[in-house]
């Protein structure tokens, strides 16, 4: 399974593609379950790059664990959850509060 991710051009915020728009939380991302869907995401990513909406576009591998999206690589898990330090700030603080 794969997701399409990038950084937003204007502020660099990590974003994921979610059926027509780029969102700031990985939980809302559109999952490609097969090769064809992944290729379709790749086309969308290239167009978004060309349209100057996002930069550093990548398809990433994920698993579903306990019903939640879990990127295979630690790098992507940290992009999704924010730094593992300074839990008083930003995305990592919001996730903690929500939990």
């Amino acid at each position, binding site marked *: 399974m794969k997701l399409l991710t990038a950084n937003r051009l*204007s*502020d*660099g915020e990590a974003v994921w593609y979610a059926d027509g728009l780029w969102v700031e939380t990985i939980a809302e991302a559109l999952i490609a379950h097969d090769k064809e869907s992944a290729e379709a995401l790749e086309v969308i990513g290239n167009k978004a790059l060309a349209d*100057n909406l996002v930069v*550093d576009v990548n398809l990433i591998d994920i698993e579903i664990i306990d019903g939640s999206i879990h990127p295979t690589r*630690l790098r992507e898990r*940290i992009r999704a959850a*924010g*730094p593992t*330090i300074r839990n008083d700030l930003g995305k990592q603080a919001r996730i903690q509060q929500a939990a």
Partner: protein
Amino acid sequence: MLGKRSKQTANGTTTMYRYDEFDHEFVNARVAQFGDQVERRMAGEITEDEFRPLRLMNGVYLQLHAYMLRIAIPYGTLHPRQLRMLAHVARTYDKGYGHFTTRQNIQFHWPALSDVPAILADLATVEMHAIQTSGNCIRNVTADHFAGAAADEVADPRPYAEILRQWSSVHPEFSYLPRKFKIAVTGAERDRAAIKTHDIGLHLKKNEQGELGFAVYVGGGLGRTPIVAKKLRDFLPQEHLLSYVTAILRVYNLHGRRDNKYKARIKILVHETGTEELASWVEAEWQALKESELKLPEQDVAAIQSYFAPPALAPRPEGDEVVRLAKLDSRAFGEWLGQNVTTHRNPDYAAVTISLKSIGETPGDMSDSQMEAVADLAERYANDEVRVTHEQNLVLPHVARADLKAVYDGLVEIGLATANAGLISDIIACPGLDYCALANARSIPVAQQIARRFSSLERQRDIGELKLKISGCINACGHHHVGHIGILGVEKKGAELYQITLGGSADENTTVGEIIGRGFGPDEIVDAVETLVEAYLSIRNDPSERFLDVYRRVGPAPFKEVLYGAEARAA
């Protein structure tokens, strides 16, 4: 270019440097130019491929979560008004903090691209910029953070760092080198600027006739191929500084590899060519240059030196008595005094290291309010000067001993009085995988856990000087190769793994550490470090024998034994 002239303070001493009209115009023009480039990028008029080299030329990187802006702090010298501006940037455009780096710069990890032109415009008002903090050019020239204050200094290295800065700023010939290029300068026998880990390291010294010149080292560097710089020349008269450095850069620009970025640094050229052969190439270039306009006129050197004239420090003979009484009153002050206060050339004064390594905090990070408070202390007690160290701390270089307790109390109030300079919790750590797009593993949490494990200052002092350095990838921004204990984070089968190197150092006897064995997981690395430290304590002859001394005396075997046991014996 970017020349400076001196500013007279109220008491008549020369303490700081100011842009002249040309410098202001140049920096403002760059701000406007980059503002226009950002605007065109946001409007989609230029592509990311076109924009990337432009943003890098202005210190803007893209990291995992956001853009990062790296701001130059030439030879690590800051005026309080500049530190206040950094506080303003942290507060207004970022998340309330900044991160001081191993190249005496500062970086902000959360600016929006759309805000960067405004940040650069604000910085320009206090004569700061982000030019040449990225790209394959000559980067910020670094220097001993105790320059101008150290008791063991032969001469202040900063005038030469400033000459190099002016010469290298937007140098047309050296703006597209095979790879980035770093220069460091020290003016004392004791190397506090890690000069042998730089592309060019300059040791300012005097010859038998008492004339100033440089021992010139070339081809040092860390990264994936750590190499200690080789001495190219034992004594280069000071007037030939620019001609000789130009000769080195020309040889590098011509012969350095451009086909493989991992082999493009000058250290590879020196290694593959051989020091003798390379020296002959440099010599040939230099012969054509040494009597050219690059030869520094004595009066020009003197003019720059006068900008760095020692501050007129008022006699404060009451210092010894004030300190004696304060120590009686506060044991914690005495401990801080013993660890974070360094002898000054003027016996009434001292240099203070402000540790940015409070236990459990991020090495090198500083909040906006801490920046403001340190700016206040520098104005009140430290002759309007702050220095950034390559070990990610700050220094107040000229504090009257009589004022040390007041400075200490001020630092206690803002949580920056940790008495751990040079101890095991004074860790260099790169941003690692928490921020950096190049990293493979986290550095900061490992540093925090080690600091917490050794949080007892009594225990740290018993261990003595121990330089622990952590990098989150092989690019070695955390200088792990030259840590007495170095830790390199790698990714193995999708998980973090930490390799340990031992015996590195970045002083006048620079050595590259040796990999001790297989790596450790995130849950094991702190125990492994503690095991090594306990082994050292059991082996040392007496407390004066430092960890590094013991390693050099006994080698890796006893340390392998305690870490790997039978596994080590079988190997």
